[in-house]
């Protein structure tokens, strides 16, 4: 160690001490200033951040699902509204004497044992103040039974929420769609806490899905002050929800329900369009599911029943069902022929068959119609007349008119999935199949078979355009009606002639006599159609064509009807399409259904009386038949009732993609089957590639 000359005496040491003490004091002062500065940084510069952190510690907001906006019909009648939902929850933190309270609740609410098990599980996992659901959709009696005994039930909270309600039930299912709990994927996409709030539902299909943004509204919040351990300290002011916006539809709710009932046991669809504006007054696809029961998730059994049904209740046939339009295209053919220069008086002699090349094309009337002019050919629905005329003119002159009246067209409607079919011509065939258009192609197309496919909405639009002479655009939302449609670029005399021909179908001894209106002074003009879904072999033809009643459901003909009324001054246009109807039951066939639906527009009481006469013959109204079907199905697939009682969301694929997949599959099979059976090359909608 080196001897230091600096500290040798006490005096020097004292000097060194006071210097170092001063340094120490300065250092301490520095630390003090640092601390004060740090504190100022936290409490001034970062004050806002820490304030909000402190608030989010303190206040726990439970979202209140917003009330969904109503869907109302053109007259203000609710199509989808909100029903008060009585529910009972438990606030775990306030629950005392758990076992006594739960057994009393089980008794008051008549809860099954497996529900009690779930409640026990939820309570074990629950955090303090977060409510645990005991039961929802309670009737008033059971809700009141709990409410009056609240003093004995600490921690039990009876609340009123809202549940979506569709007064029309299954009749509006494919119009409105339905609501359901959000999926985990939907939550992951947005991270919106509302999506995981108990009781919240969002649109899964139809208008509910398409108008989700408008209908949803802003959630309210119930704010409570909680401690770090989740203990509830005080209830703070509750922020009310902002309900979603009501949306007016062009639909007439009464007509919608009437048409749904009138379709009876058919697998079919009906559309009515206002001929002045293009507003859709009804849009029915039956059978359907009950959207009310879809809202809280349906049972596995219910789902299987709907999926297995050959009447495809999960598909909206109006926009997703594609059918060969059959003879309903003949008035449009007539218009095209007139525009192409065919004189209405030109006659064709129908002998019942026409040989083209090696093939023979038959008329639906075995012996033939004899000589027919254009009106007669439409009225009698003569195939030979159109075969021959279109063979002369070429189908390429028909196709543009078909498109102009709406076939193959896509319309701006708030629906996710629409299928828009095909209007074939030579260019289309060349592009799609790299093949030449043949005479046979043209003949098949001329009677609405072969490559031609359309959905019921397009057929209704066709009827409305022929009736009005204007290019009406269908609309569903009252705020988006396309008024001032352009006139069709065709001579009004030609259009008038076509209308007269359609009048003749119903009122002039034509094929649609059964559709004659019951309302005095109002005449309906229309066109019937039958679309074969199977090939009739020569052997069968020789032995006598099989009656539809002898065939399995999927082999029967589709039955179609398009029309408008009053015939002389069209106000309403319609289309009715019945899958595999086969014209087997008169009451359930297109002309009479079309007649009654149109009667409803002019004389509601008469239409209802007519329905009351026939409805019992097919097993009652929609709800009755659905309940009966379900009971039958349940009996056949006999699951024990306890398994049915459990309604869980996770096992049921009730979300939109599943429904879409199911409808898509149903559609494909149907389109393929239809074409295969009709003995022509399978043609699908424009966008889908053909499977070899």
């Amino acid at each position, binding site marked *: 160690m080196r001897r230091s000359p600096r500290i040798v005496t006490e005096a020097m040491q004292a000097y060194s001490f006071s210097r170092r003490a001063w340094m120490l004091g300065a250092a301490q002062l520095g630390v003090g200033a640092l601390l004060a500065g740090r504190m100022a940084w936290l409490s001034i510069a970062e004050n806002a951040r820490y304030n909000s952190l402190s608030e989010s*510690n303190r206040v726990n907001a439970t979202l209140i699902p917003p009330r969904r906006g109503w869907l109302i019909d053109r007259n203000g009648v609710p199509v989808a509204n909100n029903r008060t939902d009585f529910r009972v929850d438990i606030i775990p933190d306030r629950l005392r004497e758990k076992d006594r309270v739960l057994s009393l609740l089980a008794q008051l609410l008549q809860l099954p044992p497996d529900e009690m098990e779930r409640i026990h599980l939820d309570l074990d996992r629950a955090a303090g103040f977060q409510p645990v659901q005991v039961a929802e959709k309670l009737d008033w009696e059971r809700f009141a039974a709990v409410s009056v005994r609240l003093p004995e039930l600490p921690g039990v909270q009876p609340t009123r929420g809202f549940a979506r309600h569709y007064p029309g039930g299954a009749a509006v299912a494919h119009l409105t769609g339905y609501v359901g709990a959000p999926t985990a994927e939907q939550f992951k996409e947005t991270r919106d806490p509302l999506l995981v709030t108990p009781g919240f539902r969002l649109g899964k299909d139809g208008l509910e899905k398409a108008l989700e943004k408008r209908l949803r509204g802003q959630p309210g919040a119930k704010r409570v002050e909680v401690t770090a351990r989740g203990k509830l300290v005080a209830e703070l002011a509750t922020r009310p929800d902002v309900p979603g916006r009501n949306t007016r539809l062009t639909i007439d709710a009464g007509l919608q329900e009437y048409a749904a009932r009138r379709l009876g046991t058919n697998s079919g669809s009906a559309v009515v369009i206002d001929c002045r504006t293009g507003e859709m007054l009804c849009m029915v696809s039956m059978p359907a599911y009950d959207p009310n029961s879809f809202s809280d998730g349906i049972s596995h059994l219910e789902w299987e029943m709907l999926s297995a049904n050959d009447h495809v209740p999960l598909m909206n046939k109006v926009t997703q069902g594609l059918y060969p339009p059959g003879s309903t295209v003949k008035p449009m053919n007539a218009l095209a022929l007139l525009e192409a220069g065919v004189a209405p008086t030109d006659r064709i002699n129908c002998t019942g068959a026409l040989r083209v090349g090696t093939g023979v094309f038959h008329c639906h009337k075995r012996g033939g119609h004899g000589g027919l002019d254009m009106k007669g050919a439409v009225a009698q629905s003569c195939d030979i007349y159109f075969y021959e005329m279109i063979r002369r003119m070429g189908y390429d002159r028909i196709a543009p008119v078909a498109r102009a009246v709406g076939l193959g067209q896509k319309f701006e409607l708030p629906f996710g999935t629409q299928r828009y079919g095909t209007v074939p011509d030579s260019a289309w065939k060349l592009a799609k199949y790299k093949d030449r258009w043949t005479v046979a192609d043209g003949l098949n197309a001329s009677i609405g078979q072969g490559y031609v496919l359309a959905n019921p909405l397009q057929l209704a639009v066709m009827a409305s355009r022929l009736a009005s002479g204007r290019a009406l655009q269908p609309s569903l939302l009252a705020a988006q009606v396309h008024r001032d449609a352009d006139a069709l670029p065709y001579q009004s005399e030609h259009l008038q002639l076509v209308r007269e021909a359609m009048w003749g179908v119903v009122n002039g001894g034509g094929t649609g006599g059964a559709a004659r209106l019951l309302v005095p002074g109002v005449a309906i003009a229309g066109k019937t159609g039958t679309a074969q879904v199977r090939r009739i072999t020569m052997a069968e033809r020789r032995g006598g064509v099989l009656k539809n009643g002898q065939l399995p459901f999927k082999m029967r003909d589709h039955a179609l009807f398009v029309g408008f009324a009053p015939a002389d001054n069209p106000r309403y246009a319609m289309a009715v399409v019945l899958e595999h109807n086969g014209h087997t039951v008169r009451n359930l066939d297109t002309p009479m259904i079309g007649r009654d639906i149109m009667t409803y527009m002019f004389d509601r009481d008469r239409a209802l009386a007519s329905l009351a006469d026939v409805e019992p013959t097919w097993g009652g109204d929609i709800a009755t038949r659905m309940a009966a079907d379900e009971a039958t199905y349940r009996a056949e697939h006999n699951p024990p009732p306890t398994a049915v009682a459990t309604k869980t969301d996770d096992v049921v694929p009730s979300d939109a993609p599943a429904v879409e997949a199911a409808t898509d599959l149903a559609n494909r099979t149907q389109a393929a089957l239809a074409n295969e059976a009709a003995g022509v090359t399978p043609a699908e909608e424009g966008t889908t590639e053909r499977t070899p």
Partner: protein
Amino acid sequence: MSASLLPEPIARLPWRVILLVLAIACFGQVVLYSAAGGSVRPWALSQGIRFFVLLGAALTLSYVPTRIWKTGALPAYAIIVVSLLAVELLGKVSGGSQRWLDLGFIRLQPSEFMKPAIVLACARFYDLLPPGETRRFGAIWPAAVLIGLPAALVMAQPDLGTGLMICAGGATVMFLAGIPLRLFIGGGLAAAVSIPLAVNFLLHDYQRNRILIFLDPESDPLGTGYHISQSKIAIGSGGVWGKGFMQGTQSHLDYLPEGHTDFVFATMAEEWGLVGGCLLILAFMLVIRWGIEVAQASEGRFARLTAAGLASTIFFYVGINLMMVMGLAPVVGIPLPLVSFGSSAQMTVLLCLGILMSIDRENRRRARW
């Protein structure tokens, strides 16, 4: 002093520091009253009673002559080291860590007494050392042993905070005694190198965690980082003027852990804001400045080193605690003296103040002559 109005012995008390300490302690009781949800139980009342008893004891201690402290310094140190060993052995026997000795009527925590004792022992050592020896190796290693032995025992308990305070108190005395500055600079550098190594190899998991989380509290907001995060929220949300007396939500709703002990400053800051915090810091700085002034005025090496060392001990308490609650230091379990609920720190600080007042009394008697 206005001798005419007050009796001589009372007038001669060091009123400046007594009033400061009284103010701090009373404010502390107000905070504890609020922390208990507006009740003097369970903290404010017992803390207040204990404070006045201990303040009386400190004033009594102020009449003890400095030479008694001087003679007793090393024996007291020896007794405490033995107690620390005893605690350690008892802990081994009973299994698990133990920090106190149960004497039947009272539980003593010897490590707490070591904080002032190390100052006294080091001061006594340098007092005995001839001035010419100050810059030799012989002036360093005995002090290093004096500090290292109890520090090692305390850290083994394990009580990192107290161990650090013992080291800091001893090192301050060494610094004031005139040990070459380069040793401190070198020591500082060595610490900078060894701390990461120590963190990795010597510390317990929970201690290592506290340090890692101190560096990044948000990495574990619900675990060990919770203390720091919630404390910063309490201080930051208080703003300039605070949320108001009894209005703190972080403390009253139990989001702030240890809101009446180690994190009492956060409880206070939430309700009294930056203003309350700065006043409290100012009061503590004034107390410490008084201690340094006492040291400057003292005669004799022992008295000077002791006074400055004890003032620094109080400073370390306050400084480490405040850095901890503001997220500038890891959570090491050092309470805020006179404010935090708990007897140990209160007793230690008042013991320091008693010794300081005793030195002060001697200084003033000398000045009057």
